């Protein structure tokens, strides 16, 4: 087999493996080493990876709804883009011939809406039509509507990391429940957990607006290196400066990072990624502080550590892992 063919095959396997929940830091290191081996490896990998992402970007143009916005219509909130409306327009577009489609998607403003989801333990990287990249964490749903004038994304559930393509003329807005995050920079992640919204900014600035009450819009700007936690609608958001933002994005590499966090919270974090739920049954055990990095998809490894290092009692069933003192 030629060197090129070997490199192509291996590159395809790397790209697939990278998208699986079992992907670890060690795998990342192995990939880097393989890429460093030769320019052929780099060429084959970059080429396939590029076109694989392009497929998302282009595919997103077609599977969603093409909705021409009314002239001068001001779009507020997402009432106009309710799921039913998307479904209806989607059906309409499928039913249309190509000529009609091109007429609708003509010079007037067009909106392309697309829904992406991951299951528990899932991890996806996507390209949006404007060139921005999105990474979905476990059990997450986003919808994206990219038009000639607007870029809007709805984080319906879970957590997503964004790398926003620079475009001053089209603001990039993420809606998360009653809050709206406007991007003034480039790299950040947003997590929804019940009423709580956590925004971690790696690079640049974002603005978070509370949109519940139009008369009293609360705004805050979060800059690179900060993590903001917004709780209930009535509570003001707090900003934690100097937190290791990189650690809170460890999920992008399939890892969970903890800095002296309570076992109860650690278990809840693992439970986001695995159908098999960890249950900490007594309060004393739940209060134990945990630090370190662990593979998100392997709660077993973590639990064995609890048993061996902390002497905790572990009872495993197919659906649950019970932890007690």
């Amino acid at each position: 087999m030629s060197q090129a063919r070997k490199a192509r095959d291996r590159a395809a396997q790397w790209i697939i493996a990278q998208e699986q929940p079992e992907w670890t830091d060690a795998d990342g290191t192995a990939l880097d080493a393989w890429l460093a081996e030769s320019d052929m490896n780099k060429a084959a990998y970059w080429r396939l990876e590029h076109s694989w992402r392009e497929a998302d970007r282009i595919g997103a143009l077609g599977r969603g709804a093409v909705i021409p916005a009314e002239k001068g219509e001001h779009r507020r909130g997402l009432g106009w883009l309710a799921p039913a409306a998307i479904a209806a327009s989607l059906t309409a577009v499928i039913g249309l011939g190509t000529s009609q489609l091109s007429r609708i998607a003509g010079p007037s403003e067009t909106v392309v809406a697309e829904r992406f989801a991951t299951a528990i333990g899932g991890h996806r990287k996507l390209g949006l039509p404007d060139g921005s990249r999105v990474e979905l964490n476990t059990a997450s749903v986003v919808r994206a509507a990219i038009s000639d004038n607007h870029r809007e994304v709805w984080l319906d559930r879970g957590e997503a990391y964004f790398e926003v393509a620079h475009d001053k003329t089209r603001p990039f807005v993420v809606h998360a429940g009653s809050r709206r995050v406007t991007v003034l920079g480039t790299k950040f992640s947003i997590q929804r957990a019940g009423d709580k919204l956590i925004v971690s900014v790696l690079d640049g600035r974002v603005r978070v607006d509370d949109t519940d009450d139009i008369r009293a819009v609360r705004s805050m700007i979060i800059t690179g290196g900060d993590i903001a936690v917004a709780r209930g609608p009535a509570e003001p958001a707090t900003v934690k400066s100097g937190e290791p933002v990189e650690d809170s994005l460890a999920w992008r590499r399939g890892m969970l990072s903890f800095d002296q966090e309570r076992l109860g919270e650690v278990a809840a974090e693992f439970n986001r990624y695995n159908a098999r739920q960890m249950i900490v049954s007594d309060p004393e055990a739940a209060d134990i502080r945990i630090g370190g990095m662990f593979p998100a998809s392997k709660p077993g490894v973590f639990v064995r550590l609890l048993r061996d290092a902390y002497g905790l009692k572990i009872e495993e069933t197919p659906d649950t892992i019970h932890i007690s003192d």
Partner: protein
Amino acid sequence: MDDTAEHGRKDSAGPMPNDEAIRDWFCREVLPLERSIARFIRRNWRVADDVMDLTHDVYAAALAGARTGLPLNTRHYLFTVARNHLINRAKRARIVSFELVADLQTVPQEIDLLEAERHLHAREALRHFHAGLEKLSPRVREIVSLRKIEGLNVKETAEKLGVGKDAVNHQLAMGMKALADHMLGGTGKIVRRKYSGRRDREVEP
């Protein structure tokens, strides 16, 4: 065998680029030329089955050369690398004829510029993408769709279809490679797109 050394002037822009910059350049400027470069190789090489391999050889040599500085004129650079590589290969394979070398001495200047730098209009890109999907076997297409549209991972796909993970891996890889070949090499309506960043500084021949 250094395919870039022979042509002396690369007209590199700026300081030594890092891997990130080289990758960015490769995806933005080199890959869109794949169709043209593959056609050039096909015209000048008698074994059609070698075209994909040779294209990759050219990419690898182009990356090696770009390490000391990105070329100002990517198209000219890439065709020069391709020509040198074909001559080297022909020499080594002892299939060289004077005609071949003579033909190859001049890098085609009259490359269809629009063709070479084609960027598909969104609708065309979509149609083209769907044509690529259509080309896949039904099984491979289904597996690619489950990954790309439903977001299923290999394990979930294997469970859903009742096949082994190795089979899913294999077919997903086939689909990925076939889609890349189609999307980078296929035909489509040509539109010129305005470029941003350092492309503005590129000098047209």
